[in-house]
């Protein structure tokens, strides 16, 4: 069992001369390395049996105009102790090349392509240097997150075609799906290579909905950006705004009152509940078992109406703010919430028993879309998808935030990784969320729910924050700029990590099963595309 400190000593022993500096970021050790040495150290952290670090986040910061350098940071989560470990490196002046870690750490592939698109820094040795975020009609040399690129630039049109990986052969067909889909669902593109019905290859081509969120964050002040965080992924309002506020509170040194912590957990669990209820119904709907979808839709609607009653917004917008929550629920309201949830939980349990007993449904769900444990590990899959494939990670337990230190949630874990496992994880989490809310009601202390935002961070100070949203782990990195502005805000929705994994989960399945597999993942397109 190696914790972060032991890891540091191990790394010092192995790579002593490569490590330029060791520092601490709010309890997370930070190792500063040279650009050339970083891949070797990263590989060691990833594969060494005592460490087995999974890559959680990889981002770049353009420090201009204050300093003429780009900084690359690699966040690893050590598997056993679940501590964080940061590796940082700098590209000085006009240097634009860095060494890719993707050949050894598969989870880095999209991060590095994103950095290349947004900053113009080239990961040498990356096996796939096609554009990711920028579609082919963006002019060459457009790198939006560079500091000399204005946030409101009007882009010109260029020509180009995305080069999909093709499979040639007799009887192999290419099926493009999207970006506009037939149902009421977000826009994204899937390119299949099928031999009749079995899927030989799936390539996911997203970022159609890229709105420039990270650049927009940089135009706002630290205390004003909560509404933007709420709208990164509309169904994860609380998850994202909470992650953002936690990062800012760490930067500003604000102590959030205990009651606010409990209320934040309450709202987060409400969000988890209504989304999981909708998902269970939607998975059944994609197998044409519409009655389950109707009942789940009915229950989800009850929670959304409850939200509307409490907060004036069906998605609880405007509730989380820097320093706490703007909505201090009365005890009577909390009792109302638990009463409503008890009724919904009984309703849902009845449906759950019916679903498990239905053979035609089970036949569709079992063995479909298996994401095996090895593939999940290689992708660093997180959240519901990860937990259904044996990846035992949940930020509520691993790095407790809000009131989860006291609440001790039980984590649902399944190993098989098929659609049924993902549905079971959601069903278990529905029950657990209802139980947590009852627990919150029992333990919540009285007191204020909002602390005044105060303090001014020095430009260049930054903080990391993690929240277990309903899809999975949401990570925010917020760096302060001049006069309370945001210099850099790195947003990572769990969908960014899990989308590539779906390309592996569909192999061996027939194409009519794809909508079911996709729905069982239910990843955010907007949260991914930013």
């Amino acid at each position, binding site marked *: 069992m190696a914790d972060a400190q032991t890891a540091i000593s191990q790394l010092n022993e192995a790579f002593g001369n490569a490590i330029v500096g060791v520092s601490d970021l709010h309890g997370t050790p930070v190792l500063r390395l040279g650009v050339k040495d970083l891949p070797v150290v990263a590989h060691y952290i990833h594969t060494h049996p005592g460490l087995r670090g999974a890559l959680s986040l990889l981002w770049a910061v353009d420090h201009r105009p204050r300093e003429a350098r780009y900084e690359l940071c690699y966040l690893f989560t050590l598997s056993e102790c679940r501590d964080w470990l940061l590796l940082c490196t700098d590209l000085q002046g006009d240097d634009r090349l860095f060494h890719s870690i993707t050949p050894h750490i598969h989870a880095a592939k999209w991060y590095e392509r994103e950095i290349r698109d947004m900053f113009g820094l080239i990961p040498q040795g990356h096996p796939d240097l096609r554009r990711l975020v920028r579609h082919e009609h963006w002019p060459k040399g457009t790198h939006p997150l560079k500091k000399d690129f204005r946030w409101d630039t009007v882009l010109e049109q260029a020509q180009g075609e995305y080069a999909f990986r093709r499979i040639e052969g007799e009887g192999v067909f290419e099926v493009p799906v999207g970006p506009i889909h037939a149902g009421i669902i977000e826009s994204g593109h899937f390119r299949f290579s099928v031999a009749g019905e079995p899927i030989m290859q799936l390539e996911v081509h997203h970022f159609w909905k890229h709105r420039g969120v990270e650049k927009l964050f940089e135009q706002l002040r630290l205390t004003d950006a909560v509404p933007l965080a709420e709208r990164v992924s509309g169904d994860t309002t609380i998850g994202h705004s909470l992650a953002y506020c936690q990062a800012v509170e760490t930067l500003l040194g604000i102590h959030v009152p205990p009651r606010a912590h409990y209320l934040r957990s309450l709202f987060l669990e409400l969000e988890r509940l209504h989304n999981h209820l909708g998902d269970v119904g939607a998975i059944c709907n994609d197998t044409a078992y519409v009655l389950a979808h109707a009942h789940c839709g009915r229950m989800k609607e009850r929670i959304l109406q409850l939200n509307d009653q409490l907060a004036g917004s069906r*998605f609880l917008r405007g509730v989380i703010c820097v320093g706490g929550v703007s909505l201090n629920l009365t005890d009577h309201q909390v009792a109302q919430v638990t009463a409503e949830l008890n009724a919904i939980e009984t309703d849902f349990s009845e449906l759950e028993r019916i679903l498990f007993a239905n053979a035609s449904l089970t036949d569709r769900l079992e063995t479909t879309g298996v994401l095996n444990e090895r593939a999940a590990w290689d992708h660093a899959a997180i959240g519901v998808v990860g937990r259904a494939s044996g990846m035992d990670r949940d930020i509520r337990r691993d790095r407790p935030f809000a009131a989860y230190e006291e609440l001790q949630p039980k984590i649902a874990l399944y190993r098989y990784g098929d659609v049924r496992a993902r549905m079971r994880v959601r069903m278990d989490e529905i029950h657990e969320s209802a139980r947590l809310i009852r627990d919150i009601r029992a333990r919540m202390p009285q007191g204020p729910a909002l602390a005044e935002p105060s303090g001014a961070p020095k430009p260049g100070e930054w903080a990391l924050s993690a929240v277990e949203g309903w899809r999975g782990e949401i990570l925010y990195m917020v760096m302060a700029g001049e006069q309370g502005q945001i210099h850099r805000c790195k947003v990572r929705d769990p969908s960014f990590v899990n989308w590539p994994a779906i390309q592996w989960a569909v192999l061996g399945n027939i194409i009519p099963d794809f909508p079911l597999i996709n729905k069982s993942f239910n990843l955010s397109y907007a949260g991914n595309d930013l």
Partner: protein
Amino acid sequence: MFRILKKSLKTGVVTGQHPKADAPREPASPEAVQKTKPFTRSLAIREVDTGSCNACEMEMNALANPVYDVERFGVHIAASPRHADALVVTGPVTVNMTRALKDVYEQTPDPKIVIALGDCAINCGMFKGSYAVTGPVERHVPVDVRIPGCPPRPAEILKALAELREGKKP
């Protein structure tokens, strides 16, 4: 097998069990009402997401749930742009989706109406001016109806649709 039927019969019809919405903030223009005349009894909708955060999609999905049941007004979701009468567009039109929006507009047969759903579709919301946004929707395709909100509640969407169809109910 039969338990689900028993559950449904026990629950009964839940349509309409929602708080009533206020009158739409942007009343339907007479031109829009005129254009909708062929569709008062049967309307096929195709939803086009040009960059929304997904909240508008969730509210549109809620329209199909038993509580709002938009099907009772003769409205259904079309599986193909060729089957559609109305395009419901959400999101500030991102630079990557502009072409797709124009294409789907061309593929939808006439007569058709375009409904801009949500603040982002009407005026780009808080994404206004971003390098990645070319919207709002009316810059690219003519818009007949605007339903503001972030996101608009399903009851508000139903009310706007009903006003568009001059309150015709079966």
